[in-house]
């Protein structure tokens, strides 16, 4: 067992880990931050996406030890300071971009990373970027729509296309 320390959602966090402990396990088991989910074991589904030093990372592909000293943001850190939903979160609620909610944390984190990198993505760019995030509930329609809305697109005509 060894010690690891990092900053998670602006607060310092540390714990005892095995060498094989994944970042997602550290978040969920050591810190009790269960918003980040595990949906597969081959790094395809994207339910565990977090930001490590500003970059979207699948927290199941990274050892906790590799995040030593890193600045980690999870879904628990995405709301506004007053607790209200952030822009992307609010767009997901407004446009029914989630159903069971299990893939949602990863979707929101991926969307945030996309919009940080490309503030005005096209529908095609959004669909392409979400290649690493699987949703089984929504058929992606309202997820793509929500991200377009969060980016400021007029999405009012989409349903009628």
């Amino acid at each position, binding site marked *: 067992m060894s010690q690891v320390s990092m900053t998670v959602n602006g607060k310092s966090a540390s714990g005892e880990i095995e060498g094989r402990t994944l970042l997602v396990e550290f978040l969920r088991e050591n810190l009790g931050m269960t918003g980040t*989910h595990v949906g597969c074991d*081959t790094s395809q589904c994207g339910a565990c996406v977090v930001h490590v030093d500003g970059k979207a990372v699948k927290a199941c592909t990274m050892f906790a030890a590799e995040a030593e000293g890193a600045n980690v943001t999870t879904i628990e850190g995405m709301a506004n300071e007053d607790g209200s939903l952030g822009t992307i979160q609010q767009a997901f609620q407004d446009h029914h971009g*989630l159903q069971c909610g299990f893939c949602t944390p990863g979707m929101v984190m991926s969307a945030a990373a996309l919009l940080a990198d490309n503030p005005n993505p096209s529908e095609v760019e959004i669909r392409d970027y979400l290649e690493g995030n699987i949703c089984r*509930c929504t*058929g*992606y329609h309202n997820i793509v729509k929500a991200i377009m809305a969060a980016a400021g697109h007029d999405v009012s005509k989409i349903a009628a296309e």
Partner: protein
Amino acid sequence: MPADGGIGAATPRREDVRFLTGAGNYTDDINLKGQAYVHFLRSDVAHGTLNNVDTASAEEMPGVIRIFTGEDFADVGGIPCGWQVTDKHGEPMQEPAHPVLARGKVCHVGDPIAAVVAETYEQARDAAEAIEVDIDDLPAVMDMKAALADGATKVHDDLSSNLCYDWGFIEDNKAAVGEAIANAAHVTTLELVNQRLVANPMEPRVAVGDYHRANDESTLYTTSQNPHVIRLLMGAFVLGIPEHKLRVVAPDVGGGFGSKIYHYAEEAFCTFAARALNRPVKWTSSRSEAFISDAQGRDHVTKIELALDADNNFTAIRTETYANMGAYLSTFAPCVPTYLHGTLMAGNYKTPNIYVNVKAVFTNTVPVDAYRGAGRPEATYQIERVIDKAARELGVDPIALRRQNFITEFPYATPVAVEYDTGDYTATMDKLEEIADVAGFAARRAESEARGKLRGFGVNCYIEACGIAPSALVGALGARAGLYDAATVRVNATGSISVMVGAHSHGQGHETSFPQVVAEMLGIDPSMIDIVHGDTARIPFGMGTYGSRSLAVCGSAMVRATEKIIAKAKKIAAHMLEASDADIELKDGQFTVAGTDKSVAWGDVTLAAYVPHNYPIEDVEPGLEETAFYDPANFTYPAGAYACEVEVDPETGKVTIERFAAADDFGNIINPMIVDGQVHGGLGQGIGQALLESCAYDESGQLLTGSYMDYAMPRADDVPFYAVDHSCQTPCTHNPLGVKGCGEAGAIGSPPTVVNAVVDALQSAGHNVTHIDMPLSPSRVWQAMQG
């Protein structure tokens, strides 16, 4: 209607806030003090004699608490099946034993052999690798037709063969159907495969067993669509725990699509082990484990014949289907190819003669059970593919051929035992032609062809039987339990309301839509109403969520209970207003004496119900809580028409969905935003089946598609924006809300739509392709184009 969101309002979902902030409470988020972890050692061969399981070395490994094998479960029941199908000779189906942990034999890759309970998950997993298992391999039974040959290896030695049942529906109609086909002007025949799928809710299954020795109480936290059903099956048939000592909690559940209906061995194990060890025991499935332990879906091999007269009227349908049950009978498995499939073989059409034969077969594969649609996608796929093939053979327009044969008068009694109460298939087809812009297709095809792509148009109709299920009918058909539902409306003293419902919400948004109904009935703000679901300790009873039943069945129970609340509240109001309760009207949360300005508010009445100073206690019992059970009089019959346009790349065979339109009739709608979302999700899964997904085994029974590396889940870039419409509404005639259910439609109607479109695209380029089995992968489409 209440100011902000009664029936018909596209109210944003209240559950979203917790899911969007990481505050959901899924089963894997539950960690109990002192919990141990279990890892299941699973068979890595499909079929074999289990000679010995030597756990001695493993028991010495660090952190191991106890290792369980099949012998530990000798004194408890096996995993039960909830449905008994009677075969065409009047005999019951063959039903194999299904032990919690394998005994004597392993029957599929993934069959659990031993369970290691340790202090940590890693220790349990490490120790499992030290267990020595002695298995003599047996030939794997994989092909359904070969499995039924004389002398075939048997999956279960104590059964007479690998045939679960040979079912004829309706056997008395068989001769007339044969005669109609013999006398037909034209018969179109099609052989097709509805491939095996894996449901793949994004949350893998989890079970946490807990036990309190002091009061002998067991609690199971589990990823279930129907906690009361699990309590009943596991308590009564497996572990022998009475309901008052067994609580089952299904908290937030990350999707189900059918795969979380059933009672699974891991649930029984964790409950059993927690009692045996007197500490909580937790199991979290990996995705790899889910692929070999979650019940899978579909897997039908079918020959269908459609007979038409000289005027292109349908005169008969005859089908023969081989339906894969897998190695054991999962909870609903026997009814899927029979009563959820045979009863729908009339589709939307007035075909007078129908005969359905289904041979259900055991194989050395993971058990198969209901997956979104369950039997109805298989029925729709056959009907709509054979109609499309017939239209091409006859040189008639596929839409015109469908319109000509639509059922147009309701109620309509089909030749396959069900009666459609209402519908308007012409209206949904009219709406479809509008929203799909059928008139513009020729121009879009020309534009695609100018870019070197083939463009095809496919259309499809579907009907489904939802609102599962009328108990007397399904009892006659073999269900071992009635399928009603229940709701309890508890009005608190200050007027807020908790509604305890037997339906479970795992993405469907019940926490938002159900209060809309009660708010509408009472004229109060929906925020005063909460839905309680997923906990047998808090909810009197219920049968859960599947078969697009929640609103039609449980919602109806909720309406009935709310009606009782209104009736009692009017009595109390009448006392307060010194009037006759027959004169009391309830509107916008105010009880008024008809024709006067005397009124009393909702909250005053509810307070009077609990803490009155002056109460007619001899006439009306205090308190305001009512329960209702609802048993639907019939199934509901959602129906619709779908259209798809595809582009096919002639160089690679790759299919792209360019447009998809869905016109559905779900009867009345409570929350159109949620309904849209349900359709979108079904379309995504149906398109996945049509183009991408296939659960494949090799001939030795090894699963070839055991992860997302190999099983192609639809991604965002595989699907388009969908045009959906549900403005055609023929309300259900027999439930109080007039609702039909919308959860499965998209998955039922879309696969044949896509395949019809691809065949159209290929034929437009002169390829003589009449059918390609799903998934329409580039290689399959390319090979078909090569003739």
